[in-house]
C-alpha cells in the first residue's frame, strides 16, 4: 500500500486536490446561498417553515438520483456535482442556522428590540454572535456530508477521490480502494477538526 503511494504519488494527490477543490467551491457557494436564504427566512415564520420543508423533501432524494436528474440540464461533470451538493447542503445549513438564531435568549431579543435595533441589526449584532455554536455545527455537518457525497460525484465525471475508489472497484485494485477510502475519511476528520478549532478560537473572544 505504501509502496503504491510511493510509486504513483500523482494518482493519489491529484484526486485529493480535485476533491478539496470541489469541497471548497461547494462550501463557498453553499454558505453564500444559505446566508441569503436564512436572512429571508428570518423575516417570517411561514417563509422559514416552507423553505425547510422544501429542502427536507429534496434532501430525501438519493444523491445518485439527483445527479442523474440534473445531467440533461447541466450535463456530466463538475457543474452538476456542485449544483447537487449545494442543494443538499441547504437543508443541513438552514436547519441549523434557523434553529440557532431563533434559540437566542428571548430577554436579550426583547432588550435589543426595546432599545431600537432594527431587524437586521438584531440579526447581525445579537442573534449571529450568540449562536456561533449552532452556525458552526451546521457548517461542520455540511462539510463532512459534502466530502462523503462528493465521492459519488465521480460517477458523473466530477473527479475527486471517488474516481480512485471506483477505478479500484472496477479493476479490483485493492491499493486504490484502500487509499480512496483512507483519504476521503481522513479529509472528513481533518476538516471537522479544523472547524472545531476555528469555533473554539471564536468563542474564546466571548467568555461566558
Amino acid at each position, binding site marked *: 500500500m505504501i509502496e503504491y503511494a510511493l510509486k504513483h504519488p500523482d494518482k493519489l494527490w491529484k484526486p485529493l486536490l480535485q476533491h478539496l477543490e470541489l469541497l471548497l467551491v461547494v462550501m463557498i457557494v453553499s454558505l453564500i446561498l444559505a446566508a441569503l436564504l436564512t436572512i429571508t427566512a428570518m423575516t417570517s415564520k411561514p417563509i422559514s417553515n416552507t423553505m425547510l420543508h422544501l429542502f427536507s423533501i429534496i434532501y430525501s432524494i438519493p444523491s445518485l438520483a439527483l445527479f442523474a436528474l440534473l445531467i440533461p440540464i447541466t450535463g456530466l461533470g463538475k457543474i452538476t456535482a456542485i449544483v447537487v451538493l449545494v442543494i443538499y447542503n441547504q437543508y443541513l445549513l438552514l436547519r441549523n442556522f434557523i434553529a440557532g438564531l431563533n434559540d437566542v*435568549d428571548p*430577554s*436579550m431579543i*426583547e432588550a*435589543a428590540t*426595546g*432599545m*431600537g435595533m432594527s431587524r437586521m441589526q438584531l440579526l447581525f449584532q445579537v442573534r449571529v*454572535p450568540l449562536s456561533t455554536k449552532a452556525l458552526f455545527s451546521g457548517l461542520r455537518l455540511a462539510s463532512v456530508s459534502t466530502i462523503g457525497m462528493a465521492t459519488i460525484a465521480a460517477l458523473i465525471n466530477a473527479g475527486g477521490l471517488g474516481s480512485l475508489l471506483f477505478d479500484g472497484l472496477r479493476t479490483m485494485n485493492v491499493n486504490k480502494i484502500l487509499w480512496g477510502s483512507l483519504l476521503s475519511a481522513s479529509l472528513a476528520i481533518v476538516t471537522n477538526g479544523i472547524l472545531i478549532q476555528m469555533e473554539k478560537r471564536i468563542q474564546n473572544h466571548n467568555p461566558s
Partner: protein
Amino acid sequence: MSLKAIEFNQVCKQYSQSGDFVVDHVNLSINEGEFITILGSSGSGKTTLLKMINRLYEPSEGTINLFGEDIATIDPVKVRRKIGYVIQQVGLFPHMTIAQNIATVPKLLKWPQPKIKERVDELLNLVGLDPKEFKNRYPSQLSGGQQQRIGLARALAIDPKIMLLDEPFGAIDAITRLHLQDELMRLHGGLKKTFLFVTHDINEAFKLGTRVMIMNNGKVSQFDTPQSIVKNPADSFVSSLMRSSREQERFWEGLD
C-alpha cells in the same frame, strides 16, 4: 396648557379577536418629570400597558401620544430610540463587555468614538460603578444587582426623556433592592425625566412613585398620589390591597 409626556386615549388591547381585554379602555395622562409606578397583580395588564408605549405591543384600539405625537404614525425603531427600556431579566449581551453593552444605542446612532467613551464613563459613575474596574468586564462576571445597574446605564445612554422599567428589581435580593430603589429615586431627581415603573410590590410602588397607578383586570382602579390613595381608596380592590399591606405590617410588629 403644558405638553403631556404620555397620553392614553381609550387604549385597549386584546390578544385574540374574541378574547378578553388585557387592557380595557384606558385613559390617562402623565406630565413630564413624574415618577409613575404601576402596581397590579400578574395578569392585570400592567406590563402590556407599558410595552404599548415603546410599541413592543400595538394597541387593538385607541391612541397613545408621546409629547403630543401619535406614536402609531412614527417608525417603531425611532420611537424606541427615544425611550429607555429596562426589564427584569436585564438582557445584557453576554458577548459584549460592559462598555460595549452601554454603548449599544450610541453606536447604532453612529456617535463619534471619543464621545461614546466619555458617555460610558459618565454613566458608570452615575450608576455607582467604577468605570476603570467594570468597563472591560463581561456581564457574567457581575452580580445580579450590578447587572441591573448596567441595564439602567444602558437604557440611559442617549439621555431619553422617558424611561420604562418593567419590574427591574424583581429578581434582586431585598437589601440590594432597597439600595437600588434609593439610587433610582436619586437618579430621577437629578435627571428631570419621566419614569414609568411596573411592579407588583406595593411597598416599592408607594415608596418610589410620585403617583401610583393601580391596575386590576385591565382597568386603572386608581391613579393618584400615594397619600390620596391611602386616604381615599377608590374601590374595593384598592382597599383590599391596602388592607393586605397593613396586615403584613401588623405581622412584623407582632414579631417585635
